[in-house]
């Protein structure tokens, strides 16, 4: 099906292949939509020539940092607010307000604070990841089964052991279910940050190409990003499966 999409795309945009039925100028379609063959050529040149690798690395580094820091903060604050009713009462409204704010517009402010290097992009990614992880951890802590909790108390667990052996696993399972979205958000933060001002990264390449109206390169960038997002997603899925092996699957027939 993918091949069919590209084939039709090429057909419609290659100048001279089809009689112009929309615009008078046969080159227009190629100008607006790019041609798959040219797009693939750009991608090929990027990878064969090695120009892409340093940019790809930068984007991946920003994604990883944004995800790691955002998740750690989300976990810590989520646990804190989930376990402490007073802290929760105090801070809940502010967190909800902060979440409601369109945080992508903070990107220029982050540029001013952190410069044009990777940290402004990481900061943007963190603001996106933090809230997802926070709300999930918060929910996970609140939804710990009281029976499991009481049972563990009766088995002699003190507060620290309860945190480590009941609350944390319960919260983590909620985090993992939102992992796909979190990684995606980290990626978005990195690329959008680059797009709005940077000197490196795949987002930067796209932005440069857009400045020159080079649609082929823009699409090439988008396709590369999409491919890597899929790879990341796959990696997350594999990790999730391994760590959540104790979760009942939908079609579980392994009962005795």
């Amino acid at each position, binding site marked *: 099906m993918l091949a069919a999409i590209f084939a039709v795309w090429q057909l419609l945009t290659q100048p001279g292949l089809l009689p112009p039925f929309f615009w008078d100028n046969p080159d227009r379609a190629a100008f607006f939509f790019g041609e798959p063959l040219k797009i693939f050529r750009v991608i090929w040149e990027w990878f064969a020539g090695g120009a892409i690798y340093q940019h790809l690395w930068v984007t991946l580094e920003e994604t990883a940092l944004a995800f790691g820091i955002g998740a750690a903060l989300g976990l810590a604050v989520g646990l804190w607010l989930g376990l402490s009713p007073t802290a929760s009462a105090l801070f809940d409204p502010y967190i909800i307000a902060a979440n409601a704010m369109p945080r992508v517009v903070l990107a220029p402010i982050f540029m001013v604070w952190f410069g044009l290097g990777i940290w402004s992009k990481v900061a943007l990614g963190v603001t996106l990841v933090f809230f997802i992880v926070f709300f999930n951890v918060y929910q996970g802590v609140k939804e710990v089964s009281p029976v499991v909790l009481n049972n563990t108390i009766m088995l002699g667990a003190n507060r620290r052991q309860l945190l480590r052996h009941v609350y944390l696993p319960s919260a983590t399972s909620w985090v993992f279910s939102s992992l796909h979205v979190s990684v995606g958000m980290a990626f978005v933060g990195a690329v959008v940050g680059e797009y709005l001002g940077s000197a490196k990264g795949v987002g930067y390449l796209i932005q440069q190409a857009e400045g020159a109206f080079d649609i082929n390169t823009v699409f090439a960038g988008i396709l590369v990003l999409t491919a890597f997002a899929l790879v990341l997603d796959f990696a997350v899925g594999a990790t999730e499966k391994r760590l959540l*092996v*104790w979760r009942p699957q939908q079609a579980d027939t392994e009962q005795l």
Partner: protein
Amino acid sequence: MTAAVEFDRITCTFAGTRGPYTAVKDVSLSIGDGEFVSVVGPTGCGKSTLLNVTAGLLRPTSGTLRVLGEPLSGINRKAGYMFQSEALMPWRSALANVVAGLEFRGVDRAEARRRGEEWLERVGLAGFGDRFPHQMSGGMRKRASLAQMLILDPRILLMDEPFSALDVQTRSLMENELLELWSADRKSVVFITHDLEEAISLSDRVIVLSAGPATHPIGEFAIDLPRPRDVAEIRLTPRFIELHDRIWHAMKEEVLKGYAQTRNRVSA
């Protein structure tokens, strides 16, 4: 001999949505050392409340609870508790669940593992240590919970309708297994159930509670059936039927009262 558990005019009042609700009032009971006592009563009569007070999960509004002679403050460390619904940690394997209590007490890992395997075998789960709760049947999960509780060798066992969620056959099997494990070292047991047959076939004494609110005991019956017992077979003996008859008569009125109350509450 000091009683294992002694209730001295225990009263529990909760702040309900429609005003204060007294679950149990002036309950004075005593569970002897090594005695298997069942507490029966109509639905909603505060049986679980009494058990939670004994466990230390709930503080009574007034009255004293003495455990092995000492007044109880905080969690009852001498008691093991078996819940009605799923209490195993779903993120841990069966073996990891069974050794959890030992882990919390700082027992060395290899030693804990060894004892865990031993207990898994005793409850008939040998070889299933690596399974997660969702991969086990209801009966298997109950066995794991039993092992998890008994591995800590508590003096007192508190059981809140532990087998009511199982099918009839599994329930009989589990009841027999419980008796077997119990007779090995005669712990004191407080067993809550609304199944009178289960109560009589398992216990040395059956206590009947009145219908709520302000529940209190309305009868105590000594069960003089010989041990060892087979839970399924003992139900057909004449003495059993006699006891069942007597206790049911005491209970019947309370059960009907209990239902009348819930009907009134629904139509109100």
